[in-house]
């Protein structure tokens, strides 16, 4: 009974202005997850590979960048160098791992990325170090009173979250247009459906994958930078991938706009859960499994996510 009461209380509290602020703040922090998710979806959509190494690529990029700036390299030079490193890394992964494994079943490819993940973890920390570094992008983090713009909306929003949202949104729009309206985009979708058939019609699988992995490397870097500014660069950054996972699963593995929507949902649900429902369950720190529970509920309703392509199966 007590639990029920507090549950009702929690729900009641959710629909106040404070609840709205939490909701909006959560959505915006969910954008951070979207950033990770975009790289995931890009690779999955173009090759059918569930790239588990995403988190470590992110860490590797951020760590490279930080280590360079700490060695007094100019910001933009470091940025350029890191971009190049990530492009090269993407191409190397494609060459040495994805190409020999083309046409294998998706589980093998997934496992291969798990291997790459482990490899990069060792490499990143072996090459640089495992200390905690700070990153300052120079984006203001002070809050904005939304009421100054929309008078009746008396809530606070962080500028930094706005910046992250802008980055994510432009990435999503760009990639969406690319996949939907360009030749390469269409080829990529074909490749993710059937490797063999796309080779048979003359789509240069390997070239296209090299491009995708290179782009993914750069996207990882961008996401890594923003995350690093939020969290600082350390090993914990690799767990960003675990934040991205429920997001892409909600949005659907094959949908770029899904990343954004999934991120918003997860972010909001996580914050609401943490603030209003954690006490009901008798302890803080529920956000880890809460996100997955949210995702699970969505997926049970739509087994391939909100925007994901339905599997077409026949014998």
């Amino acid at each position, binding site marked *: 009974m007590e639990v029920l009461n507090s549950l009702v209380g929690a729900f009641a509290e959710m629909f106040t202005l404070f609840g709205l602020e939490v909701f909006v703040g959560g959505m915006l922090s969910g954008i951070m997850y979207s950033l990770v998710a975009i790289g995931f979806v890009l690779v999955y959509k173009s090759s059918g590979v569930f790239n588990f190494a995403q988190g470590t690529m992110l860490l590797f990029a951020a760590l490279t960048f930080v280590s360079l700036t700490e060695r007094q390299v100019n910001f933009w030079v470091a940025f350029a160098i890191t971009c190049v490193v990530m492009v090269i890394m993407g191409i190397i992964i494609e060459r040495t791992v994805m190409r020999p494994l083309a046409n294998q079943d998706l589980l093998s490819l*997934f496992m291969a990325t798990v291997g790459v993940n482990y490899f990069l*973890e*060792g490499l990143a920390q072996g090459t640089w170090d495992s200390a905690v570094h700070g990153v300052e992008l120079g984006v203001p983090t002070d809050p904005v009173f939304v009421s100054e713009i929309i008078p009746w909306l008396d809530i606070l929003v962080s500028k930094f979250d706005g910046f992250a949202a802008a980055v994510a949104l432009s990435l999503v729009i760009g990639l969406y247009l690319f996949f939907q309206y360009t030749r390469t985009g269409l080829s990529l979708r074909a490749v993710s459906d059937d490797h063999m058939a796309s080779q048979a019609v003359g789509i240069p699988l390997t070239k296209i994958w090299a491009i995708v992995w290179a782009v993914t490397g750069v996207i990882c870097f961008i996401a890594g930078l923003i995350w690093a500014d939020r969290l600082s660069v350390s090993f914990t950054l690799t767990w960003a991938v675990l934040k991205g996972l429920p997001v892409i699963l909600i949005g659907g593995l094959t949908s770029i706009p899904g990343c954004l929507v999934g991120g918003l949902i997860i972010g909001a649900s996580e914050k609401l859960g943490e603030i209003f429902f954690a006490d009901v369950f008798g*302890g803080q720190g529920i956000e880890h499994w809460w996100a997955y529970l949210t995702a699970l509920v969505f*997926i049970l309703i739509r087994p391939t996510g909100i925007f994901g392509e339905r599997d077409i199966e026949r*014998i």
Partner: protein
Amino acid sequence: MYYRETGQIVSSYIEDRRMVPVREDRWIMWAFLAFMFFVVPFIGNDYWFSAILIPIMVLGIASLGLNIASGYTGQLSLGTAGFMSFGAFTAYNLLLRVEWMNIWLAFLAAGVVAGLMGVIFGLPSLRIKGFYLLVSTLCAQFFHEWLFNAYPWFLNYASSGVVHLPPFHYRFMPFQDQIFDMLGMAKEYNAYVWRYLIALIVCVVLALAAKNMVRSSTGRNWMAVRDMDIAAKVIGIPVGKTKLNAFFVSCFYCGVAGAMYSYCYIGNLDFMIYDLRRSFLVMFMIILGGLGSILGSFLGAIFVYGWPILVTRFGDAVFGGGYLDTAFVENNSKIVVGTIIVVLLIYQPFGFAGLWNTIKHRLRIWPFRT
């Protein structure tokens, strides 16, 4: 090879369906078991028991569990450590709170509870497939970390979050106290050699059980679901039921392994060690050892667990003690294991077990080539 199966003619179905069809293989198996049971306890020392043999057996069982879900039934799971943790906590609480509990029953209960958790978290597999299923098992993984953290009752309100497992927990045979007193061994219940024997018995029983399940209709159903679930459904295999029983068996193994991890290996209970990284470690074991292979589960465990030790030992031998720092060893083993995973996936998708089969096949027809 030095022996051939030629001339070993079977004359009944019972013989035909033997687990180990070749006579010499049977001899080797019995000799190996006898060696492990009757020789090793006398020649082994604490280091070998505690740091090598026990962990390999425990992790081997865990990876066998994961292999049943992922390798045999094709259901991806990243919650292995979570299910291990459910098992460990079940065993601990039973032994702590139930007067007449002994370690065998506790392990069994650990398996059953973890198995039931597995069924609960496996329920979504009835509706969702493939990578989407990761969400459910990851949920299990994080849920256990939160549960055992938020409710200290499970840890008997230990302030440090770690419980040392008291000796009276290690009750593994009737009249144990009396026998031990008689032999003058006081209360050495949790001496490593006993832990080793407990682990070995559980390990042998579970491995044989798995081998037989895989050969039976249960196992064939699992594999049918893995290879193409629609086709399996069409020929009348109850896909949902098969998935759930795979989850149950898989998590049963993980649960037992979890209890053993606490009781036989590290000797204390702490939910922090059952983190996601442990899940991944177990996953590496099955990838390297071979998906869908019982032998492979153990080979994988040996390699993934053994490699860092080997590197450390090697470093100590070549450069003198303590030359290689732990960070180096850790990074090195990550790089090596990562590389080997990729290389094996490319050249030998069935892992060490596949390698072993190829070698065996080559030897069998040696000196001829295929």
